[in-house]
């Protein structure tokens, strides 16, 4: 076989193999594990330089569970990471973003590579020295160093430009205090979640929880609202009206969402134990008794009691009256 033919065949073989290889790798069916890859980007707050994906500590495992949950919810990578960083003080992104103070980390290596290659090409292309260079006059030596200085200067400029991005600081507001002066209606659900998670033991957190839970509740997102109502109901710090509201919502969600009449009645009774005059609690309890427990008489009694509240709004009064009429006429619940 001639050398030429052999070369052609080899190149052809290399191309075929490379194509097959690229095709095989490109169609690799196993997608990267998102939970794992997100976990690897976050430093475990109680560890030394380990990511939460690698650390066996309880906190890291809790955080990984949270990541998994949010991935299942369909949240995006950045969204999940922001939430975690917000919620856990000491958790840092191990993967510095290419903006702000860490931009320089990404620019500098590339700049160094380009600069290094530049120096090599300059050095090579430059008229050679050789053993006699000792006699080269100083001025020409200086001229030879000039391109090096230019390149060094260029590098410095790149670093300085990158340094300007240092100004763009991000300081996540992670305390209740940071939100205290703000109108909560302007704060996103995500931010509130994060602030709450970061301040679970803060005495003022229950108000925020309740506000957030109400938002979820109003949009029908019982699943998101539930843990917050539960936390407020169980919180020793919660003010009575807050606890009552939470218990009422929990009770109603238990009935409306899960059809659990017994649980709902227990929760509503708990609310009434704190505030026996709550119209909402009494009204809802009546609904559950009527529709869920088949106790029409009990329901009628409660509704009658609510109607006795002089402060009841007119439209509510009408609604309750119509319910009461329906019960009395023996209608089944609506």
């Amino acid at each position, binding site marked *: 076989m001639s050398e030429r033919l052999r*070369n052609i065949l*080899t190149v052809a*073989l*290399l191309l075929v*193999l*490379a194509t*097959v*290889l690229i095709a*095989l*790798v490109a*169609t*690799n*069916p*196993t997608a990267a594990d998102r939970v*794992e890859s997100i976990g*690897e*980007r976050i*430093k475990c707050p109680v560890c*030394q*330089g*380990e*990511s939460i994906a*690698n*650390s*066996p500590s309880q906190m890291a*495992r809790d955080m990984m569970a949270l990541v998994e949950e949010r991935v299942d919810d369909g949240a995006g990578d950045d969204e999940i990471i922001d939430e975690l960083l917000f919620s856990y003080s000491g958790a*840092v*992104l*191990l*993967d*510095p973003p290419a903006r702000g*103070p*860490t931009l*320089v*980390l990404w620019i*500098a*290596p590339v700049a*160094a*590579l380009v600069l*290094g*290659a530049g120096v*090599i090409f300059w*050095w*090579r292309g*430059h008229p*050679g*020295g*050789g*053993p*006699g*260079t*000792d006699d*080269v006059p*100083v001025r020409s*030596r200086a001229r*030879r160093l000039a391109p090096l200085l230019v390149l060094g200067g260029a590098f410095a400029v790149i670093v300085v430009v990158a340094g300007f991005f*240092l100004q763009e*600081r991000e300081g996540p507001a992670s305390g209740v205090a940071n939100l205290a002066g703000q109108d909560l209606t302007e704060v996103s659900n995500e931010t509130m979640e994060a602030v709450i998670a970061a301040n679970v033991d803060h005495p003022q957190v229950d108000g925020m929880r309740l506000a957030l839970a109400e938002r979820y509740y109003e949009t029908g997102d019982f699943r998101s609202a539930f843990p917050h109502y539960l936390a407020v109901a169980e919180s020793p710090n919660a003010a009575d009206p807050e606890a009552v509201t939470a218990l009422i919502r929990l009770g109603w969600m238990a009935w409306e969402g899960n059809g659990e009449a017994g649980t709902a009645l227990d929760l509503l009774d708990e609310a009434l134990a704190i505030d026996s005059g709550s119209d909402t609690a009494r009204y809802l309890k009546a609904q559950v008794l009527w529709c869920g427990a088949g106790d029409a008489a009990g329901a009628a009694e409660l509704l009658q009691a609510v109607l006795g509240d002089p402060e009841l709004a007119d439209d509510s009064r009408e609604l309750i009256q119509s319910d009461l009429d329906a019960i009395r006429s023996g209608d089944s619940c609506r």
Partner: protein
Amino acid sequence: MLSLLGSTGMVVALVGAGLLVARGVGTARSGRATNLAGAARLLVSGAVAAMAALVVALLTDDFSLVYTANHHSSLTPFPFDVATAWAALEGSIVLWGLVLAGYTWFVFRRYRRSPDSLGAAALAVMGGVALFFFGLMVTVANPFEVCVEAMEAGCAASSPWPFATVDTPGNGPGPNPLLQNHFMMAIHPPVLYLGYVGMTVPFAYAIGALALGVPGPEWLRRSHRSTLVAWSFLTAGILLGGWWAYEVLSWGGYWAWDPVENASLMPWLVATAFLHSGIVQQRRGMLQAWNFILVISTFSLTILGTFLTRSGTINSVHSFTQSAIGPALLGFLMLTLVGSFVLFSTRADLVASSPRMGSFVSREGTFLINNLLLSVYAFIVLIGTTYPLVLEAFTGTQVGVGEPFFNRLAVPLSFMLLLVMGFGPVTPWGTTGPELVWRRVRNPAVVGLAAGVLVALAVSRNGWVVLSITLGVFVLATLAGLLVEQVGRRTAKTGETVVDATRQVVTGDGAFWGGQLSHAGVVLIAIGIAFAANLGTHAQVEMRPGESTTFEGYTLTYESPFQQTPPGKTVVGARLTVTRGDRTVGIVEPSWNFFGAQSGVGTPDVLHRPGGDLYFTLDDLPEDAGDPVSISLDTSPMIWVLWLGGLVTVLGGFLAMRARRTERRVAEERPTVDV
């Protein structure tokens, strides 16, 4: 008594170092050979006495020394009692001093054989470095202070004066639990120090050569062997550190881009670049200035690494409580950098002269690319490690730079280095056409790609795994091809058998083939990492006693919790039987170890299997015998290839060094002819 011995030792060593500087400088200046033996002997005997005093104090439970009282316990078993000699700050400086004295002795022996200015200047620099470290020992990190106010376990107040009235505590708290959990701890620090400190030798020769104004290859020739020794030990030390992390640290990993690991990787990368570029200067006279820069950087990075790990700047198992050692090391680093580069710039006219390269298609061309890649690699590690510290120090902003950052930049660079590694050895020196290189790489390229396709079909289609195999096999095939080519030429010429010819070829150029063995080792390391990092699986299970679960084809049965009390510690853990099919393949006991009153250390258990390790970590301790335990399970496929690769790499380094020595002996017997 031991305090007196140790204190005397360090003062004697300090005096020896001072004398070495004074007389070394004198000799180098006058050019007249003088006897430096006295100074060298003082340095070495003082360093040996200091280490001996410390070890004897630990072996005999002499708690009158503060060091023993605070870092040792009479329950600490062998070899951890000896290893305690370097498990804390002051002791680690003693070890540094001892290793430095050892290297100084080797430089001195060479000087004694053929005394000249360069040797004397190098000894003066070694003496200067020793002066700093023994100075540290005498001032801010004195391991021979005596205890003057004892506590129940440990010492409350101390005196540097050996004759002070001693109040001896009954016992001590023992060393850091993490450091007494594995016998590796006795070996890893000395090995790493042999690497770190050894980099002083080429640095000393370089500074000596600069000061004397002789930038030619002589300083490289003299220091090359030491550089190889130091490089081999540094390689071994880094890998032992990785192995220790894997076996002891309970997270299944061997490398986490932790600042402490980075601190050892940076000098390794630059030293590796220097090993290659040094050859270019010796063979072609090029890169004079670059070699000075590299060797100064390597030495500075070892000091920076020591500063980072020892000063408490980074919180880790290596850092000790805040002490004056941080500023001292930082000051020494600044002095080294400023001093070296000022000296360098005053000699720039001498250094800048060197021939230019003809073509990139040449050995020197590939070495240049290798140097660029390794330098950028080291720069990435440097900036990733120090930038968060600097940023926090100046602005208070906390940023994290961890695995994802390093992996994203270092992994592509590593593969580029592998590619260059395939071309370098088959490319001849000087100007050649690309035809010869093409002839040598075309078959290996086919073999490498074919291996990649095979692995993709049979094992995994993960891109990194396939790439590591493709490039790795390509490199190995180029080496095999080169060997076959040279052996074939020799058998044709001499008519020897293939075995004899192979032996002749390999021993005939031992330095080259030692280097190629190291290349093969690096290939194995890359493959091992690619497999373990990409194909590992993880699971977490909860089991009650008697329950079983399956993981990666193995059946794991949680038998029972257990508790043992070997000397010095209490081990609490879970015992599991691992079966595959009907066959029991092992019993594993992931556990927690408790040392005295100190908090427990999770200790994984690893079942080593040919296809890869099964790694067991006990997440929680069961409170009652019947409680479920939570166990993390990991696989590390093919991780033994990584350890094997490490061994091969280190072996290659030592082989190259041996070959150099033989070459030199032969060369010294003949009148030298400069090539």
